[in-house]
């Protein structure tokens, strides 16, 4: 088989040579035979005649030779393609409309598919990456769905879970890279020694990390990515200053090493003091630390899960918190790494692909209708050709070649549109999706585009070929000759496609409406603070230079003092974590006097450390008592502020002021309890669509210090204009400290809506295109109906019908199409609403006002589309109409 295709390929490549050689070979034969005949005494003329007769029909033999080489179907294809191309060129209006429709629809599909391909389908760039898993802790009944893994988890599990061939811990982090005074803040990763071995890709120069390098005293080593190494050439053994310490380069990673969405250029050992590896730290996960493991060949996910469950159960037996953990529904889940990483965007991407596909169907319905109209105008030609003996197969292949030529060209335009679309999607935040920085065109995408175009071409050809074959040949010739009423089957088919188009557009519009409402609901949710005129920035305060809380508070005080003196600054405050920062770690507190009711579980809450004028700066509302002040850090009696959600949960009927709580588990030392001195309004932490009131506690900064701090300042000026001022102030206090993530709070809030906004905008864009296509489609179908009935209209007008009757007749056709399409569309909108339920925010999947609006828009557009044709119909003069009979 292979040799035959090879031979075909070779011949196609030199088609011209093939023909020339064949002709030469055959004429040689005849010549030689003639020579032989002459030599045996036949006169030359007679010899030539006999040679030619005995040889047989030259053309037939040539054709048989071509057939022997499988060239005939190809020749036929070329001939038909030429014919189709000529036909398409003859009707440029139709061709351009069809190509644009296909280009836009296929482009939209390819763009979304490029994202799906890069994010969901393409395997991670590691050998046998399907065996990579991650493990995380979950405490669902305490309101914590996901809590990463702790260092203790890692040390307890590695080499104890036989289903894994490797298990590693990692954490994404940032660090200041470079000499003192450098303010370049870089993404880095901290990884345990087995990390690279588990992934199956490690340093190509040098070595991976060793066990000794996991101790904080001996962890000053670094592995560089290829990209970083090319920008900053460093030999193995040379040193790089990171966060003020000299680190020795021990390895260089291969080019294109990329772990999930990480932008890290430098890898450091995950070091930890022994005190952080003990049983007490087992549940101090926090989402920053993650495990990655590789399943042994032959081991299944279920086996790994069973082994982890068994280990957890054994450890819980001697855990004093065992009962509490069981109540919280604690489990450690083993899930595939890739699927887990992209789980959050999967539904939205699939929804968008479905929307793009719907758009394609609408475009195809349009195209089929245009083609049907075109086929009808050529039906006489077809019928005559059939009557003259053109085979069915020939007609079918001719139609298919024409449509496939169209869809292939459309696919080509679509590929270009898709390439532009990917860039366009980046403005919608596609590059911020998990793995979104790896969205690109690849062979799979090109193959999908080509195969899809061909399949589409064949699919589109089906109804047209069907119609061409099922027309009564004799009838067509006669009816066309007499200009009689249109072929009913063709009209019905066109109407069916128009109805399908209206129904699909209805579904698309309804979906876009629901997403739009979701966006509106999400953006009208109050975040609980006033985001306008607030600038935020993050400062990393290393423990090396600021060893205890008095030193850190002193830094805070100095910073706040200097910042508030700057012109334009109204007030300033500090907090360990601002809302919408992307970090949403929770911890637990123990409320004095609160007894867990049966069925109630310990709850996790947000906890913050604040300094300066944080609440006023952020515009929190005060519900009772007072805000925290800078002096609360030094007070003899510990105080705190809680938010409304927290107060409502624990003291629904009492005054929260004066109530006491411990940070973490209950303490015997009563002086360590915090007294509630104020209640503030609840603020969202994760994003506007966050539901479930978790509650929050705000402590004075001394009791909740962190290695980084966020500065917030309220200003009367545009917030971004103060960014440079803030950087200068910080540099004056300590030139070592860089300020990163300088952003206005407005930007953060707007960014947090991207998950709602981008799909809604894309759906709106698709709907607009769909609406345009549908109006063009309806217009086309009705215009054609009018054109076909010119004669009939002329007769009726001559018999005294009034223009409005004629107009009404065509509006009625449009209304029928609209009603049928809307009815089917309603059903579709119902099921699509159900399917996208999880993506909607405070919108029911069936939203009657949305459906009514969509119906109105569809009615308006359809009527507009049929207005022109029906007006034209009513203006046909009897004479003109009759003359076309």
């Amino acid at each position, binding site marked *: 088989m292979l*040799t*035959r295709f090879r*031979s*075909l390929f070779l011949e196609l490549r030199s088609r011209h040579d093939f023909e020339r*050689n*064949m002709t*030469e*070979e*055959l004429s*040689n*034969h005849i*010549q*030689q*035979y003639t*020579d032989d005949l002459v030599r045996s005494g036949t006169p030359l003329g007679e010899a030539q005649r006999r040679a030619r007769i*005995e*040889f*047989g*029909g*030259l053309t*037939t*033999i040539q054709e*048989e*030779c071509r*057939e*022997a*080489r*499988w060239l005939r179907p190809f020749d036929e294809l070329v001939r038909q393609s030429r014919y189709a191309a000529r036909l398409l060129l003859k009707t440029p209006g139709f061709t351009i409309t069809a190509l644009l429709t296909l280009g836009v629809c296929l482009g939209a599909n390819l763009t979304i598919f490029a994202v799906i391909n890069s994010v969901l389908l393409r395997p991670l760039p590691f050998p046998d990456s399907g065996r990579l898993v991650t493990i995380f802790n979950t405490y669902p009944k305490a309101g914590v769905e996901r809590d990463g893994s702790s260092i203790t988890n890692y040390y307890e599990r590695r080499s104890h879970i036989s289903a894994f061939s490797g298990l590693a811990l990692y954490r994404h982090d940032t660090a200041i890279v470079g000499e003192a005074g450098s303010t370049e803040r870089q993404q880095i990763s901290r990884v345990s020694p087995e990390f690279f071995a588990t992934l199956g890709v490690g340093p190509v120069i040098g070595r991976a990390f060793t066990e000794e390098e996991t101790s904080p005293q001996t962890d000053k080593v670094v592995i560089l990515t290829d990209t970083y190494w090319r920008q900053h050439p460093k030999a193995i053994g040379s040193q790089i200053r990171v966060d003020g310490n000299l680190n020795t380069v021990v390895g260089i990673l291969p080019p294109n090493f990329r772990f999930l969405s990480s932008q890290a250029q430098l890898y450091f050992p995950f070091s930890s003091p022994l005190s952080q590896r003990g049983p007490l730290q087992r549940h101090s996960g926090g989402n920053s630390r993650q495990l990655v493991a590789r399943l042994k060949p032959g081991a299944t996910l279920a086996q790994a899960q069973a082994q982890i469950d068994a280990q957890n159960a054994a450890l819980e037996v001697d855990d004093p918190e065992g009962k509490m953990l069981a109540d919280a529904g604690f489990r450690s889940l083993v899930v595939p790494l890739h699927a887990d990483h992209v789980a959050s965007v999967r539904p939205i991407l699939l929804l968008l692909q479905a929307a793009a596909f719907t758009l394609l169907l609408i475009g195809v319905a349009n195209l089929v209708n245009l083609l049907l109209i075109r086929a009808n105008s050529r039906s006489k030609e077809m019928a005559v050709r059939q009557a003259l003996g053109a085979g069915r197969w020939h007609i079918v292949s001719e139609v298919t070649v024409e449509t496939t030529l169209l869809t292939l060209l459309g696919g080509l335009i679509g590929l270009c549109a898709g390439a532009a679309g990917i860039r366009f999607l980046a403005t919608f935040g596609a590059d911020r999706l998990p793995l979104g920085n790896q969205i690109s065109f690849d062979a799979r995408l090109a193959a999908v585009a080509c195969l899809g175009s061909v399949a589409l071409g064949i699919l589109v050809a089906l109804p047209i070929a069907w119609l061409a074959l099922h027309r009564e040949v004799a009838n067509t010739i006669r009816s066309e000759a007499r200009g009689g009423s249109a072929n009913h089957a063709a009209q019905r088919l066109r109407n069916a496609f128009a109805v399908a188009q209206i129904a699909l557009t209805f579904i698309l519009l309804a979906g876009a409406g629901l997403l739009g409402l979701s966006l509106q609901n999400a953006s009208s949710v109050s975040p609980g603070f006033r985001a306008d005129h607030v600038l935020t920035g993050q400062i990393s305060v290393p423990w090396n230079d600021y060893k205890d809380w008095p030193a850190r508070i002193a830094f805070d005080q100095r910073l706040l003092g200097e910042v508030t003196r700057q012109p334009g600054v109204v007030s300033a405050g500090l907090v360990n974590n601002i809302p919408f920062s992307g970090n949403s770690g929770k911890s637990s507190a123990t409320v004095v006097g609160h007894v867990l009711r049966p069925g109630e579980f310990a709850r996790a809450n947000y906890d913050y450390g604040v300094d300066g004028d944080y609440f006023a700066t952020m515009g929190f509302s005060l519900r009772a008592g007072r805000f925290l002040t800078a002096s609360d850090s030094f007070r003899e009696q510990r105080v705190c502020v809680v938010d409304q959600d927290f107060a409502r949960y624990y003291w629904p009927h009492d005054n929260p002021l004066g109530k006491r709580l411990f940070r973490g588990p209950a303490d015997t030392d009563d002086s360590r309890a915090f007294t509630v001195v104020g209640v503030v309004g609840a603020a969202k932490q994760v994003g506007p669509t966050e539901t479930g009131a978790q509650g929050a506690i705000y402590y004075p900064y001394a009791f909740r210090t962190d290695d980084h701090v966020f500065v917030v300042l309220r200003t009367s000026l545009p917030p971004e204009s103060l960014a440079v001022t803030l950087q200068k102030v910080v540099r004056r206090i300590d030139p070592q400290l860089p300020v990163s993530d300088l952003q206005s709070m407005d930007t953060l809030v707007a960014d947090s809506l991207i998950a709602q906004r981008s799909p809604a905008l894309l759906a709106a864009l698709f709907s607009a295109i769909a609406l345009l296509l549908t109006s063009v489609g309806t217009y086309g179908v009705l215009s054609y109906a009018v054109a076909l009935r010119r004669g009939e209209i002329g007769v009726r007008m001559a018999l005294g019908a009034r223009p409005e009757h004629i107009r009404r007749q065509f509006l009625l056709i449009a209304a029928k199409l609209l009603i049928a399409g809307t009815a089917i569309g309603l059903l579709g909108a119902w099921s699509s609403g159900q399917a996208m339920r999880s993506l909607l925010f405070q919108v029911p999947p069936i939203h009657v006002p949305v459906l009514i609006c969509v119906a109105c828009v569809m009615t308006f557009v359809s009527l507009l589309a049929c207005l022109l044709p029906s007006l034209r119909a009513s203006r046909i003069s009897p004479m003109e109409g009759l003359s076309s009979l």
Partner: protein
Amino acid sequence: MTTAADLLPGTLDMLILKAVSLKPLHGYGVLLRIKQISREALDIPQGSLYPALYRLEHQGLIGSEWGQSENNRRAKYYTITTTGRRRLKEETAGWNRLAAAIASALNTTPEEI
């Protein structure tokens, strides 16, 4: 000249393979060679030779190369390939079995039943 017999279907390929297996030949040469080795007993329609040659080449059973003919014309010479040689051997064996079977069937006398 003996009366030429018509070819049985499918035997032309076999004869062509045999002819070119002896010596590389051009198309007209194949025709002459078949006539010669069949002692002028087989009548090959001249034109049908070429589709068969093209088909065999397409199947990779014979190869071809352009060269000089005996009277200094450019001519396409066909040679047998390894696959072609194997096929010829199989077909020859098959043909011999068939011929023997048919011969024995046709030679049966009433006494032998």
